[in-house]
């Protein structure tokens, strides 16, 4: 037996016994090398004899080790699971239960306060449905995508067909129209949790539309799902041909049922409702259809209509954020997410004095188009009360406004609480109190 193999067999033996935490602790105690070595050897002998270990933990200043060692289970070998110490979860959003009394899921918000990097884990990706929805249980073998209407060759694709087509993989955020911060919110999950970002894999819609042969005058598509209300949205052909994706993959595995399994349309940078889930049909048409989804966004005001369509430049500091607590003065990395429906994030600025002075934040990793982009800012907190904000500037020069700036642009009377028209992309202020507690500072 080689040394390595010997070691391995001991290792497996040890884990089988669920050795308590202090084995490692005591084994490498450095206070007195000699006696510990003797102790270790003794314990080794005890192990070899199959005797359970005592817990005569020596009082020393060592850091704690693991709580225990887990036996493998078939379930976890098959599909991994996060640590029992990680308890970040989604919450129902907007004051309506999900699931509700009928078992309908409506709006569910992502715990952005716990986010790191730019990918939202699929299990934590926000979810929205138009009117509350049951999640369809779809057999992908039977699922079909039909493209028809003003095309030369109407087509039906199986999932396997779609996977034969040239694919692309892209990071994209989605954001719900209801992602609107207000003064009653206390955490970022409430103020901003209706946006998430994932890696999406699928076929460009333009590839499929070219395959079908779009006819002259076909300026719109209607994309439709297969849930019980058959949610459908009108999307302009310019968008369909530009960068829409027909996705079967999400974060390296099939799209999750709550996100549209087995097929979802991605309309990057367009408001959430356009990203049709459980997609089964695309009809190529010559006019805006005013579907029920479209009706839900109907407004009388052209500016509001425009500002509720393509999402504006937006950012938010995820840490520190509302409800969190700084342990004391000193160094912190301020970290947040920025995104825009207009393209990639060009720059993010951070202020720690409520907007008097702004500094460039660092952009972490490549800034993808229509994707959450992580920014950070090195901050030494002196322990005095202050206010943190961030603002996003995107690649086409759009700047994230403060609520006051947006109100001023629309000549809102100063005695009115400012309301941002269309999708709310206003700056989120977080107030840091002297005791290190963080609060929503929307006035």
């Amino acid at each position, binding site marked *: 037996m080689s040394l390595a193999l010997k070691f391995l067999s001991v290792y497996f033996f040890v884990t089988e016994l669920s050795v308590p935490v202090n084995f490692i602790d005591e084994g490498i105690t450095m206070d007195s090398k000699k006696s510990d070595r003797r102790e270790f050897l003794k314990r080794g002998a005890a192990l070899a004899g199959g005797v359970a270990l005592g817990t005569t933990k020596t009082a020393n200043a060592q850091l704690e080790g693991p709580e225990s060692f887990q036996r493998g289970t078939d379930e976890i070998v098959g599909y991994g699971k996060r640590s029992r110490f990680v308890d970040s979860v989604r919450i129902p959003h907007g004051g309506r239960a999900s699931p509700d009394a009928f078992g309908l899921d409506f709006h569910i918000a992502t715990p952005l306060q716990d986010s790191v990097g730019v990918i939202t884990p699929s299990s934590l990706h926000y979810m929205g449905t138009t009117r509350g929805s049951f999640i369809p249980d779809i057999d992908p073998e039977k699922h079909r995508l039909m493209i028809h209407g003003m095309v030369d060759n109407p087509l039906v694709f199986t999932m396997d067909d779609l996977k034969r087509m040239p694919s692309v993989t892209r990071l994209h955020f989605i954001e719900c129209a209801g992602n609107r911060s207000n003064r009653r919110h206390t955490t970022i999950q409430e103020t901003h949790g209706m946006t998430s970002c994932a890696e999406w894999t699928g076929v460009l819609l333009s590839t499929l539309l*070219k*395959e079908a042969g779009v006819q002259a005058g076909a300026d719109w598509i209607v994309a439709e799902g297969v849930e019980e209300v058959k949610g459908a949205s009108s999307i302009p052909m*310019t968008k369909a041909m530009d960068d829409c994706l027909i996705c079967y993959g999400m974060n390296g595995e099939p799209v999750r049922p709550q996100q549209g399994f087995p097929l979802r349309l991605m309309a990057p940078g367009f408001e959430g409702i356009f990203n049709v889930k459980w997609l089964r049909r695309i009809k190529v048409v010559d006019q*805006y259809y005013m579907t029920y989804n479209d009706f839900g966004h109907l407004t009388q005001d052209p500016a*509001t209509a425009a500002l509720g*369509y393509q999402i504006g430049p937006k950012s938010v500091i995820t840490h520190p954020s509302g409800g969190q607590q700084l342990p004391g003065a000193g160094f912190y990395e301020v970290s947040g997410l920025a995104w825009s429906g*207009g393209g990639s994030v060009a720059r993010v600025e951070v202020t720690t004095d409520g907007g008097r002075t702004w500094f460039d934040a660092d952009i972490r990793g490549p800034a993808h188009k229509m994707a959450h982009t992580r920014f950070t800012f090195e901050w030494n907190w002196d322990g005095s009360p202050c206010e943190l904000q961030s603002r996003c500037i995107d690649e086409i020069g759009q*700047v994230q406004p403060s609520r006051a700036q947006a109100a001023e642009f629309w000549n809102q009377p100063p005695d009115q609480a400012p309301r941002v028209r269309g999708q709310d992309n206003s700056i989120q202020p977080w107030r840091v109190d002297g005791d290190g507690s963080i609060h929503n500072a929307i006035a």
Partner: protein
Amino acid sequence: MRLLKLLPLILLFGAAADAQSPTYGVGRTPTDAEILAWDIAISPTGEELPVGSGTADEGSELYLEKGCAGCHGTTGAGGLAPRLVKRDVGVLEDPWQYGRILPIRSPYATSVWDFINRGMPLGAEGTLTPDEVYSITAYLFFLNDVIDDDLMVLDEKTLPAIQMPNRDNWAQVPDWFPGQPRLQGYPY
């Protein structure tokens, strides 16, 4: 070598196929019946409407029979589900002010037919016949004073012709092109 082998094929199909639209030959042609069965989104001009007809008079009974009343209230209001009839506030100058009530706010009669057909009754979607949908739609229009004759026949021709009060009273979304700001002249 490979290209040379492909050349005859390209020559063969080149005439029919646009050089910019490669044909992968994946997927099949749907049958007319398959298209018809799924073709449920109704355009404002009503092409997709199936043949059928109904009146508000018939709809008033179906509204009870099909369970609509149980959720939306017997008078179209007062149930747990959203109200389907405008409030009794007389004739408002701006019909938008009646509120977000589909059968009065929607600019097109077709949207109302379409939604009832695809989405109602909740829990038994897709069970109404075209005649039933025409009748119930007529009834909701009658309740909202969109039509004033409870014997008016709504069918695939008359329904799209109904002039909804907000027909031209709504904001269209802007023409969309890649890389454009979401609203010209708005810096944010």
